[in-house]
């Protein structure tokens, strides 16, 4: 499929691609932020040396391409203890409250390769809450979930993870929680014990359990306001009374009516508590 020059797709072409994909597969991208999605699709076109016609053809005719497309469109940048001060806020503002629940169910929505789930597990273990906790990690991308289940990460990334962890104000060392071998490291077995990873699409799937804590950080930024509204409703219905909802640093509930049913626990890190 030779091409003269990489050309930019238009918003109209993007719309056509989204509609086509929606018709022939279960993947609905219509609620994604347009400019961001357009860049993602453009990236795939450049990577695969395709034009729009090739792409549409592949969506319809090439087996496995739809899943490949979804896996490439979703952004999977994550770190252990990303935003260290967020974890400080969890320890200070959230855990004292979570402690009062007899059993804890937590949901990391859009968990990518699982680093955040294991970070949460470590924080809970250090507060002596992990024994009665269970963490669900979900993502729309099936590839990243495979990595998350294995809990094996490149060792070189642990330099940054350790820096992050130390910045959360702990006196422990992250190396207590993994075993390194050659150039990889696996998260310790007892930290992996109470977690489950499964595919869940925030754009189309429904409530599957009741949680005391939901974290969904840097996921809603890819959704337009309408899809955000759906997801907030989904979270609201999934939370138990006085359950917590944590969003990313740039995300906010202020544009949404459902905001009135939540109390702001931490403004800087967008931690909310369901109060009605």
């Amino acid at each position, binding site marked *: 499929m030779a091409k003269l020059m990489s050309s930019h797709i238009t918003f109209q072409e993007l719309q056509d691609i989204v509609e086509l994909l929606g018709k022939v597969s279960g993947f609905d991208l219509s609620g994604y932020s*347009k400019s961001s999605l*357009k*860049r993602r699709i453009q990236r795939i076109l450049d990577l695969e040396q395709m034009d729009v016609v090739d792409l549409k053809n592949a969506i319809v005719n090439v087996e496995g391409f739809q899943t490949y497309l979804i896996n490439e469109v979703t952004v999977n940048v994550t770190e252990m203890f990303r935003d260290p001060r967020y974890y400080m806020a969890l320890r200070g503002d959230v855990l004292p409250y979570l402690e009062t629940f007899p059993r804890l169910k937590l949901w990391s929505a859009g968990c990518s390769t699982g680093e955040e789930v294991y970070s949460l597990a470590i924080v809970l273990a250090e507060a002596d809450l992990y024994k009665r906790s269970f963490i669900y990690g979900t993502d729309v991308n099936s590839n990243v979930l495979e990595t998350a289940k294995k809990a094996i990460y490149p060792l070189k990334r642990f330099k940054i993870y350790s820096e992050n962890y130390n910045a959360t104000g702990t006196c422990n060392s992250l190396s207590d929680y993994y075993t390194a071998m050659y150039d990889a490291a696996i998260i310790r077995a007892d930290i992996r014990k109470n977690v489950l990873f499964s595919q869940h699409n925030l754009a189309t799937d429904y409530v599957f359990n009741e949680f005391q804590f939901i974290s969904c950080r*840097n996921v809603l*930024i890819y959704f337009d306001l309408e899809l955000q509204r759906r997801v907030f409703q989904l979270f609201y219905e999934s939370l138990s009374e006085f359950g917590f909802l944590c969003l990313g640093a740039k995300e906010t509930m202020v544009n949404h009516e459902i905001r009135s049913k939540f109390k702001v626990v931490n403004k800087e890190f967008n931690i909310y508590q369901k109060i009605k």
Partner: protein
Amino acid sequence: MMNKAKDIVLIGGSAGSYTLIVQILEALPQRFDAAIAIVIHRNPRFTTKIEETLSIKLRRSVIQPRDKTAIAPNIIYFAGPGYHLLVEPDWTFSVDVSERIHFSRPSIDVLFDTAAEVYQDRCTAFLLSGANQDGADGIRRVREMGEKRSYNRRTTPLLQQCRRMRFRQTQKVTSMMISRSSLFSGS
């Protein structure tokens, strides 16, 4: 519904361009109709107080837009560290954490590219960087989109001046000093 800016002025620079950007901002008239969006390369691991400092110094709104912030006139927006800043077709900002572009997140290219697409010929861009490729593709895109719709309507004196000063990709801009009077007189 909030009033959205019909024109946008973009400024992109590496960390070293900070003083130059401050000079430009100081020279701005106290009120104008365009929004100003700025990307400056900075490291998310260190906190900076650019917005607070400039708000006080310039006595005007200087903010880090959050996700889906409407782009309003007469406000100066700085891309937050660690996130790309994008312009959406409904004249709002969005942010994302996709791959770094030219080792940068926020990347100048990402803002320029998406803003050019939406604002077309009502988008003016300044690139104040010599060290890195970031911004070069973006500014070319601003020019392309502007030319596509070059049949021009009424423009404000500020934007006329800005357009006259628009830099080409091949020009090294760091060596260029902008005198206040020539850039923003007449507004």
